[in-house]
């Protein structure tokens, strides 16, 4: 049996200027699943994520999140989104940032402390964000998204620029969140993060190249590591791994 569907995307097309950033993409995310969205830079991952949280003007197709069209007002405190570039106030302290966003979200008072602990930033709570390292800033941004205890969390490259220890601790946080029923879509262009996800969506040039599992990706390409498996998938024609209607003709 499968869990309820948290996100359903059908034939999504997004044009940005003259380029088609997302080209006829369809997939579903089950409630409480941890799904990795992988693909090279510029393949449309960010545009797809922006569409899910409702900040992107879409050309056609439909996105339903928790039974509501993406971006509808009722989703604003249940869908969390962390952009690739940390969007927090550099001239405020970590705590001031979190307290402000917690007030906007209407979170309970203890949410700030919990979020600080979750991203391991208690020691920096009183530091100004602009004085932190890139990785620490990224974690402040992530903590902000955790404040509202969202049911769906969309994370755009949350582990970029982090050392291996921190990456490991964040991935274990992601697994804890899914264990509590949160649905996570996590993008990365680092292919070796693929093994940490239960399911993988692979994008290239706006199209969904594959909808598979880490084991499925390795076995279908016959490669030993994810990096070369992905390269093989792009270069070779591997119809067996292609998922859904995204499998179109490529030359």
């Amino acid at each position, binding site marked *: 049996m499968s869990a309820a569907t948290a996100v359903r995307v059908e034939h999504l097309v997004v044009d940005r200027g003259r380029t088609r950033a997302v080209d006829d993409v369809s997939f579903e995310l089950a409630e409480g699943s941890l799904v990795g969205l992988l693909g090279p830079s510029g393949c449309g991952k960010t545009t797809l994520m922006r569409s899910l949280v409702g900040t992107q*003007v879409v050309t056609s197709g439909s996105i339903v999140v928790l039974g509501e069209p993406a971006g509808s007002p009722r989703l604003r405190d249940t869908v969390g989104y962390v952009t690739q570039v940390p*969007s927090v106030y*550099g*001239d405020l302290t970590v705590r*001031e940032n979190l307290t402000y966003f917690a007030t906007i979200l209407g979170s309970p008072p203890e949410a700030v402390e919990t979020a600080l602990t979750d991203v391991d930033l208690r020691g920096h709570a009183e530091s100004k964000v602009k004085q932190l390292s890139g990785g620490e800033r990224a974690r402040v941004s992530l903590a902000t998204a955790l404040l509202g205890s969202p049911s769906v969390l969309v994370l755009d490259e949350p582990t970029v620029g982090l050392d291996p220890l921190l990456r490991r601790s964040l991935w274990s946080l992601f697994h804890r969140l899914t264990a509590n029923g949160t649905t996570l879509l996590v993008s990365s262009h680092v292919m070796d993060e693929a093994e940490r996800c239960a399911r993988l969506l692979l994008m290239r040039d706006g199209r969904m190249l594959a909808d598979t599992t880490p084991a499925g990706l390795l076995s279908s390409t016959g490669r030993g590591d994810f990096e070369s498996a992905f390269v093989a998938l792009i270069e070779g024609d591997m119809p067996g791994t292609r998922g859904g209607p995204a499998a179109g003709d490529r030359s």
Partner: protein
Amino acid sequence: MTWRRTRATAGRVLRQLRHDPRTIALLVAVPAVLMGLLAWILHGHDHDFDTFGPQLLGIFPLIVMFLVTSVATLRERTGGTLDRLLTMPMGKADFVLGYAIAFGSAAIVQALVVSGLCFGPFGMTVRGAAWLVVVVAVLDALLGTALGLSVSALATNEFQAVQFMPAFILPQLLLCGIIVPRAELPTVLHWVSYVLPMSYAVDATQQLSVHAVVTTEFLVDIAVVVGFLAAALVLGATTLRRRTP
């Protein structure tokens, strides 16, 4: 819109300002020094400072607040924090009013200090009530904030935002009656001056300089300035987009 979110936003903007003491110092010192300079220039010219002082007392804060607000909002737009807020249960009015309240409080401090200096050591006198001059100065500063909020939507970077000051404010300065009385302007320019908020801001202080009692014209001027202020805030809110291409 909720008061909780508006208040939190105003508090957050003020906290950012507090972390930046140099900006606070500039906000107060720049108009104060400019007014002092004006008093010095006009020293010995009978009552010229009494004529020009109140007019410019309204204009300098407007310019300063216009610049500060347009850059601050631009930073929110380009830094991704505005997008983040708009994915949250944040009303557009919460954002705009939060900024207006925060910079409005800064404007009150600014107006009190600068007019205190003008009426005190600089020796400015008006026939009307001095506190009304302070009220007009605060309203003008708020108008600067509101115009800055709405105009920042047209700018995509700081270079552009800063250039909107000469583009939007200086023509108003030329036409508001300080250089040539509005009635003596060429006909077309005279008409144009009627749709520019600064004309009313400057006329309001002129009324206070000349008349000991509150005139109907003064009340109309104030009403028009408040109208422009409200319109600019509404315009500022409508430029906020939850969904972008």
